[in-house]
């Protein structure tokens, strides 16, 4: 690793934390960083509340903090999932949605929003159907002679199947439920409060941490199967663990924030361009860059217009795709 790469790596690691803190002061209501600092410390030091405007505590602790934590962990989790699955499949176009996770989660959430309503929370339903989709993909693809190709093809098929089921639910949805469903599917970080996040954030954190801990194994998994076996790796078990962790992260994100596309594809590519292809660096740096990227995209989503909010999923696609095309044209190669 060159000195330049090392410095760049540390900057990338610092990036989401700096953006996180600055973003706490960004929003409809202008809150100076000093007040943000006091509000953050006020649960531990109640004296800090003195002099703060009445709504600042509610905005910083009740609105911005959970939203930014969600953006941080969702961005990190989606990027790490994408990087891990790309390494696993040795395919640069694979991302966390290719295994049908997103379609399964979207269908599950739509069932909850449109049909079951209050009786079955969308978070739980999304998670269950994401797991169902991945189990189907794994069950069908594992007996193939070419497991990776089979995994990808089965993922596309299962994804299409759940997309069709989603369309069916949309077809029968009431006009009220349809509006909610449309916005949920566009991706939005602003809806869940602490209650919903108390389940989802630990799942995202656990899955992301698990994938980061497995980063060195991904170098082995990205070799040919023969080479990996020669190194004594239990391929089936290791790949299954990676897929399960990626499913855990993606379904936890999708269940509370809807479908946020392109993060898991673009961020790992950017990291590989900067830091090379060693997954020991790619995976943690993807986490850091993905966290910062989604926080910035969400800052735009909530700050671009004072009186309305554009779903962040639109921004991640609108920003990410042209940027990605530019980078591909410039680099003229696929990094993996």
């Amino acid at each position: 690793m060159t000195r330049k790469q090392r410095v760049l790596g540390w900057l990338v690691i610092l990036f989401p934390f700096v953006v996180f803190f600055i973003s706490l002061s960004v929003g409809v209501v202008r809150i100076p960083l000093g007040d943000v600092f006091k509000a953050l410390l006020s649960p531990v030091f109640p004296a800090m509340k003195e002099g703060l405007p009445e709504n600042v505590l509610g905005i910083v602790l009740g609105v911005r903090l959970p939203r930014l934590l969600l953006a941080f962990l969702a961005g990190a989790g989606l990027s790490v999932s994408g990087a891990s699955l790309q390494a696993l499949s040795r395919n640069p176009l694979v991302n966390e949605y290719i295994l049908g996770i997103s379609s399964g989660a979207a269908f599950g959430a739509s069932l909850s929003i449109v049909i079951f309503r209050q009786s079955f929370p969308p978070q739980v339903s999304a998670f269950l159907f994401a797991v169902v989709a991945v189990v189907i993909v794994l069950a069908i693809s594992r007996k193939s002679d070419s497991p990776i190709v089979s995994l990808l093809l089965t993922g596309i098929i299962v994804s299409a199947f759940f997309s069709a089921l989603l369309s069916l639910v949309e077809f029968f949805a009431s006009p009220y439920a349809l509006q909610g469903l449309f916005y949920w599917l566009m991706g939005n970080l602003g809806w869940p409060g602490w209650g919903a996040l108390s389940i989802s954030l630990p799942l995202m954190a656990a899955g992301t941490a698990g994938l980061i801990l497995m980063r060195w194994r991904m170098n082995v998994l990205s070799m040919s199967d023969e080479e990996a076996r020669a190194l004594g790796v239990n391929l089936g078990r290791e790949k299954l663990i990676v897929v399960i962790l990626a499913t855990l992260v993606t379904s936890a994100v999708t269940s509370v924030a809807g479908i946020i596309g392109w993060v898991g594809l673009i961020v790992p590519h950017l990291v590989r361009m900067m830091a090379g292809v060693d997954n020991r660096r790619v995976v943690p740096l993807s986490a850091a860059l993905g966290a910062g990227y989604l926080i910035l995209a969400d800052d735009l989503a909530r700050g671009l217009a004072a009186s309305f909010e554009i779903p962040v999923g639109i921004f991640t696609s609108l920003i990410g795709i042209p940027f990605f095309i530019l980078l591909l044209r410039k680099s003229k190669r696929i990094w993996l």
Partner: protein
Amino acid sequence: MRSFASLWMTLRRALVLAFISGAFFAATAPSVASSPAQAGPSPALTVKDDLGRTVAVPAAVKRIVSLQAEITRLVVALGAGGELAGIDYTMRRHDHLFKYIYPDEARLPVVSMAENNVNLETLVSLKPDIIFASPFEKQIVEAIQRKTKIPVVALASLGDTAKLADELKLVGRILARERRAEELAAYFSGGLGRVRDRLKDVPAGRKPRVYMSFWGSLTRTPIRYDPVAIAGGLNLAEKAVPDVLGSAGTTVNVERIIAWNPDVILVHGNYLPAERTVTVEGILGDSRFASLKAVKSRKVRYTFGFWNWWDMAEVLLETEYLAALFYPERFPAFDLGRRCDEIHKMFYGLDGGFAKLSAALGCDEWTHD
């Protein structure tokens, strides 16, 4: 690969949503003129509908199919419910009061599914003289008329309650019930006029600032809501998006709601209690909103006026209710239960309207302080 699909799905949904929202307010006012007959041997009316189409309708309408919930209710209010030959999916599934307003509704076959998907074979088999349709999409309306050879009139006030009285008169004329239409239009306009009169001297700076949580979402809000405006309230989201976009509503963030610090929060209540994803109790108990004036004064209430269409009786009732909520000192004698009964009796001949509304939607919260 999935991301390309994801992008397409996102764009497709954005377009569909824009269409749904845009169609809500996009239509023009209907008009009517007597003209020589074009359909059948009897003299006909020539009607200009909300899509700007000129439609010749038969003079004697005996069988009606309504694919537009707003018009179905008007037909019943005009006393022509017995002439309904079929209703639409939305009415059957989502109008929780229709069974009280028109007890024979169970006999009516449903001729459409969600998203304006009409079963043409069922439609033709019912042999209607006229079809009332939603002006949401011109191609669908014209396709139905072309394929069935039955006149299709696309009507709906699309958010503009000022058009409701004209729409009622037009439907009354098509159904040869002009006197009943005039009577109801006068009752409706008179009721709204009395509210306006009592509030005409309220200075703009004293109007309560209102946020509305609609469509089952805390952050989705209508940018136009006539009952609030007529009742002397200020819809905080009124100018949230440019008029040229034609949107019915917009999405704000929670922080925006806190920054607005509304005096009153209205929650869309036209859901069965079990289906409500946003509730008055939920907002009152949400720590993020503890500092809001509306929460401190407990002026967080359900609203029932807007379904996915406007109903004249509910618009009038809600306008009076909101006026009394915003300005209790100017409407000291307002009695929600009594007015609910009176208005539903006038429009639908319904006795005990308030008790039935309360039972259907669990809306006794209306009377909470």
